[in-house]
């Protein structure tokens, strides 16, 4: 369970999130809202990339401000642009880089890499330069990198925004099949519509929180 208690978050010059109190238990939660509403900051709070300026964020009881290392083991984070999260020149090397912190021996690393590559049908790309992959393949590689560390929660920050339709479908099918808890920040209301709970953010506050249909309807009415 992830909980936020009276959380404020600031960037120099302004407060991005204001007095947010929430408990996140559902398996699929979408976060929607206009640009600048605080969605990305909200997502970054959940794995300790952003620390609250006041209030408290805990993941399974672990305070993100006190033990960011433990929180990052629990919460994986997928960014919008996969090009920024793939660090190594070859696919296999990038996956190995993710395992570095786990300090496994070489056969264990090999087995983990084999499993994740076959899970996402990326085995044929194992020794390919990561720069040459398609957008969808890069995003799947980034997702594979996160799952290698077996997090309980996945925070996705607009994971399909830069993808074409076919790659979007491929990535979303992979995400939908995940057993982990997913919190997805998205502008894609089609994705949000399939989620159990939707949060609508507006000007740094949670304006609405509930079943997808009602929250999305409110969001649409705001845009009219």
């Amino acid at each position: 369970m992830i909980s936020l208690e009276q959380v404020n978050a600031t960037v120099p010059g302004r407060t991005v999130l204001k007095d947010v109190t929430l408990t996140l238990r559902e398996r699929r939660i979408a976060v929607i809202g206009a640009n600048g509403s605080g969605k990305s900051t909200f997502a970054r709070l959940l794995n300790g990339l952003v620390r609250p300026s006041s209030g408290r964020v805990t993941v399974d009881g672990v305070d993100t401000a006190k033990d960011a290392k433990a929180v990052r083991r629990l919460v994986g984070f997928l960014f919008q642009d996969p090009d920024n999260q793939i660090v190594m020149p070859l696919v296999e090397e990038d996956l190995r880089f993710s395992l570095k912190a786990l300090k496994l021996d070489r056969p264990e690393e090999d087995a983990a890499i084999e499993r994740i590559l076959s899970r996402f049908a990326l085995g044929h790309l194992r020794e390919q330069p990561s720069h040459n992959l398609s957008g969808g393949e890069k995003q799947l590689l980034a997702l594979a990198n996160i799952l290698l560390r077996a997090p309980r929660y996945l925070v996705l920050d607009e994971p399909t925004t830069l993808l074409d339709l076919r790659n979007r479908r491929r990535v979303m099918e992979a995400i939908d099949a995940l057993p982990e808890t997913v919190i997805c920040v998205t502008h894609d209301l089609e994705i949000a519509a399939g989620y159990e709970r939707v949060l609508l953010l507006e000007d740094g506050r949670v304006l609405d929180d509930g079943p997808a249909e009602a929250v999305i309807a409110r969001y649409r009415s705001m845009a009219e």
Partner: protein
Amino acid sequence: MNLSLYQPGTSPVHRLHAVWKLAGLFAAGIAVLLTESPLLLAIGLASVLACFMLARLPLGAVLRQALPLFAVLAVFFAAHAIFTSPELGTILVLRFATIIGCGLLLTLTTKVSDMMAVLERALRPLALFGINPAKISLVFALTIRFIPVLADTWMSVRAAQQARGLGGNPLALLVPVTIQTLRRADQIAEAIEARGVEL
């Protein structure tokens, strides 16, 4: 554009540990500088070529990298033949061809991560002075990984500025490329942090 030249394979050269390959490159570099015998240098170059055969690399991949170097060496030889002597030109060309061949063989048969591991080990004594070897080897890997990405940024900004009729203005290119690069650097650092990699 891809700066990682590695060609997958299972040859004995591929399987040889990166530390031996780097040691071989270092030794070859010293050996070619210590001798002036064209015969010995030719034997050295022939040995490097034999290693290429042993590595069973795709000819196209090798030629793509080697041909521009051949052209430079040809100019080098011609300049020496005209201004000094063909013998000296031969010695210098054999030296450079051998050492460049060794370097090319290393990069074509060795993964960046394997070179990183060797670099990290070699730099370990620097930890005594508060320098983190893992950070230095990561910088090396990031450079190889992100130069093609930065080249893409450069080309897309250039296309955008050309569309606005600002193709010849260096500021119109440098400012957005610099801003995008700095922003990307922040995002990469954030992504590495999010992956739980501690340096």
